[in-house]
């Protein structure tokens, strides 16, 4: 018996919708299930499961089950393309659905990986995804070979048709037989020179759903009997709830209950609940209004003393002390620099940033006697599932996570990596009815898992030809309680592993402590440090009398991939340093997620200091690109992401809490600030597979800051740029 994620009703609904002129059939089981009710997903009767990844129906339509989440980065399309490539089916015969996380967990992690992060989907998961398609193709061939009494190698599988000599049949005809076949050995996946589909631009399958309001996000979940909760946790994270007065608001219309949410002592990890209180009502606005009016007393605790200023003071103190050495190459760089000569020194820092997904953090959970259903905007459905199981004390086999579209991901995982899934599970467990928890934007920004602030001190000694002979860096990277989980690797990224061939290097890091929960954000580490390292590189190059682009080409000699990207950037951007005052070009190049990305920014700065970023030229080496259009979209988006933080972003900490928690004060890039972006690939091919969801971002802030330097003569060593006086005369 087959099992898939599609409810019968969802299947019928979308079959009807597909007749409405959509080029590609596409349906989203979690989303459709959300509009009916929480019951087990049914098995479609007319598709045969060849393996966990795909079914083939009697019309030859292949339904690909995608275990990853779709946040606009193209997971549904990429996975479907990889399967279609190996299966040899026409792209118009492919549709994509989300795979079932419960099945994944209860059948030995059948999809291998269900999380979606680190720009990993294509670069790391393509072998097993393509394997699933290749295996299905060979089993179809084997089924035909058996029926026709020929050798499997004599059967050709092309565009949904099996052929041997004069005999032919469709995949659909042999699907049932293929499902029962065991191959003696699994086939190898195709090499890039054999691709017929991968490498072509395909528009993403999710787009038509996202222009008419029909794409369902977790926040759109509606269940029979569902109630709504607004929550408030201590404004100073991990502070305690002293009291609240439900009596003051319980007579308000629609209000059902006030429920205290309790942190478990000692449990301060990623997704654990903080102390707070929820108001439950028949609509969210009624719940939110009552919560805002309800008197609440908090015990903020000692963290209420901390501020942006105290944090930077702490960082500067740490920078005076030796840290953990994570890179020491050649002679002792610290001693060389200490001995004197021409030394360039600078301190850089970057503030807190928040994900600010446009879909506020939310989750809906339905707890009944027999099962638990979860709708959560998570990048990790298996985590959401285990969180809900843990909070409700249920076995994971009875917990069902419905994958829906994510209203932005950016590395934070939405509901999965925050306490909201636990909150909804707890409230539903107590109330015995479905509960949708939505965080206000203020709650979302104050209690998201934030991008850590950091500070780095750089020192370089100039040697022969004006090039650096020694390079010493010491960084402070703040994480919750100094937990090294996020700190260790990311605190070195793009600093400790800087590519340039400086003979004597030394890097140390400190894990600074904060009470603020921290987590990964799009391009963690590289996002913060790319700006610092690549701006300081310009300082060193210019001090040594070098053109910054020539300096980078010189310092990566013999490193083919870096040379290719830099030379392509030179050709495509026309980088120059002799523009008139008020105009400037700047460059940056950063490796992250297996890809090398370079940017060239062209800016103008008015005499009064108004910055305009005109253009970004981006060059990326991701080894291979399976869908160039999707890759370009991700580069455009990554560039906007980093430009937003670097130009207008930054959270301010005061009395232990963030003071700018909505979009009137926490600024995001707006359309009138968006530069033209030209993306070029400079692919190295071979065994290199790099990601594309993040790498184009990190080189953008230094490219812009370096361009500002050429336009104004002002060196920017912290972000956001808007907090600097850029005027010139």
């Amino acid at each position, binding site marked *: 018996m087959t099992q898939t994620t599609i409810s019968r009703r969802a299947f019928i609904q979308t079959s009807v919708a597909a007749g*409405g002129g959509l080029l590609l059939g596409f349906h989203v089981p979690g989303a459709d299930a959300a509009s009916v009710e929480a019951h087990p997903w049914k098995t479609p009767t007319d598709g045969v499961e060849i393996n966990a990844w795909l079914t083939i129906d009697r019309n030859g339509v292949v339904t690909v089950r995608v275990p990853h989440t779709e*946040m*606009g*980065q193209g997971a549904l399309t990429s996975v479907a393309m990889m399967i279609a490539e190996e299966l040899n089916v026409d792209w118009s015969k492919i549709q994509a659905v989300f795979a079932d996380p419960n099945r994944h967990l209860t059948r030995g992690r059948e999809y291998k990986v269900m999380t979606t992060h680190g720009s990993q989907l294509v670069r790391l998961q393509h072998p097993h995804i393509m394997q699933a398609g290749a295996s299905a193709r060979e089993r179809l061939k084997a089924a035909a070979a058996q029926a026709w009494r020929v050798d499997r190698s004599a059967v050709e599988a092309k565009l949904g048709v099996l052929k041997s000599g004069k005999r032919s049949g469709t995949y659909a005809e042999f699907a049932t037989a293929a499902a029962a076949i065991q191959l003696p050995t699994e086939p190898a996946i195709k090499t890039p020179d054999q691709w017929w589909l991968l490498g072509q631009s395909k*528009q*993403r399958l*999710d*787009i*038509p*759903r*996202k*222009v*008419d*309001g*029909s*794409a*369902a*996000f977790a*926040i*759109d979940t*509606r269940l029979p009997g569902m109630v*709504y909760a607004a929550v408030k946790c201590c404004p100073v994270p991990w502070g305690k709830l002293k009291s609240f007065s439900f009596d003051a608001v319980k007579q308000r*219309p629609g209000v059902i209950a006030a429920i205290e949410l309790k942190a478990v002592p000692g449990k301060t990890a990623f997704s654990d609940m903080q102390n707070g209180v929820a108001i439950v009502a028949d*609509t*969210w*606005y009624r719940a939110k209004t009552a919560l805002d009016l309800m008197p609440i007393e908090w015990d903020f605790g000692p963290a209420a003393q901390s501020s942006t200023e105290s944090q930077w003071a702490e960082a500067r103190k740490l920078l005076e002390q030796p840290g953990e050495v994570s890179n020491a190459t050649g002679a002792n760089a610290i001693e060389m620099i200490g001995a004197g000569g021409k030394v360039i020194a600078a301190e850089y820092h970057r503030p807190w940033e928040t994900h*600010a*997904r*446009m*879909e*506020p953090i939310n989750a809906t959970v339905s707890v009944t006697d027999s099962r638990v259903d979860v709708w959560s905007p998570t990048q990790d459905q298996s985590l959401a599932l285990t969180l809900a199981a843990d909070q409700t004390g249920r076995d994971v086999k009875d917990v069902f996570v419905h994958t829906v*579209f*994510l*209203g*932005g*991901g*950016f590395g934070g995982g939405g509901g999965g990596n925050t306490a909201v899934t636990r909150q909804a599970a707890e409230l539903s467990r107590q109330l015995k009815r479905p509960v949708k928890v*939505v965080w*206000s*934007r203020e709650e979302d920004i104050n209690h998201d898992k934030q991008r850590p602030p950091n500070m780095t001190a750089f020192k370089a000694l100039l040697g022969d030809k004006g090039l650096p002979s020694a390079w010493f860096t010491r960084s402070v990277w703040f994480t919750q309680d100094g937990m090294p989980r996020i700190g260790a690797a990311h605190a070195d990224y793009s600093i400790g592993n800087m590519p340039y061939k400086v003979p004597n290097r030394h890097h140390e890091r400190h894990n600074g402590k904060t009470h603020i929960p921290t987590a990964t954000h799009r391009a963690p580490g590289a996002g913060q440090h790319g700006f610092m390292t690549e701006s300081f590189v310009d300082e060193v190059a210019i001090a040594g009398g070098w053109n910054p682009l020539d300096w980078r080409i010189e310092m990566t000699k013999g490193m083919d991939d870096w040379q290719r990207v830099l030379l392509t950037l030179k050709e495509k951007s026309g980088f120059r340093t002799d523009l008139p005052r008020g105009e400037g070009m700047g460059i940056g190049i950063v490796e992250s997620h297996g890809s090398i990305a370079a940017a060239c920014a062209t800016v103008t700065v008015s005499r009064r200091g108004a910055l305009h970023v005109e253009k970004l030229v981006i060059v990326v080496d991701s080894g291979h690109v399976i869908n160039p*259009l999707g890759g370009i*979209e991700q580069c*455009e*988006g*990554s*560039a*906007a*992401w980093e430009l*937003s933080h670097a130009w207008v972003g930054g959270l301010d900490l005061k009395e232990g809490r963030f003071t700018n928690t*909505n*979009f*009137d004060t926490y600024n*995001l*890039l*707006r*359309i*009138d600030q*968006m530069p*033209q*972006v030209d993306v070029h690939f400079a692919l190295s091919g071979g065994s290199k597979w790099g990601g594309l969801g993040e790498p184009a971002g990190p080189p953008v802030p230094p490219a812009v800051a370096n361009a500002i330097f050429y336009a104004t003569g002002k060196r920017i060593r912290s972000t956001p740029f808007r907090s600097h006086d850029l005027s010139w005369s």
Partner: protein
Amino acid sequence: MAIALQINGETHTVDTEPETPLLWVLRDNIGLTGTKFGCGIAQCGVCTVHLDGQAVKSCAIPVSAAVGRRITTIEGLTAKGQLHPVQAAWIEAGVPQCGYCQSGQIMAAAALLARRRNPSDQEIDAAMSGNLCRCGTYLRIRQGIRRAAALMQTE
């Protein structure tokens, strides 16, 4: 209290406080979830709908102010199964990424094109600067609006 609203050509009666923002009536009372919640203070534009053809931020409009006016949401932009030119252009230009802000972007763009058949780049930026997109699809939003303008010329 009972409040009657004209939404997408149909009359809906809801029982709610008159100061409830239109956004929450659309989403929670009526179930039109294509209009999104983003900030609650008219700063992000994901809740944009049309009131008598004008783009407004529904999180900042009390439902009482929408009585007697034509309310159009993203679900009502598609007339008789036919995509609005902005929606068709959005597919052609491949605008949406995560898609969460796009209902608001499309409603803002449709209202712009209703009053300016062929807006300049500056007019596009000015009209769309109240709509945030965290995925950074702004380039394709501009392309989509230019394409929709072209589609509307040939209609």
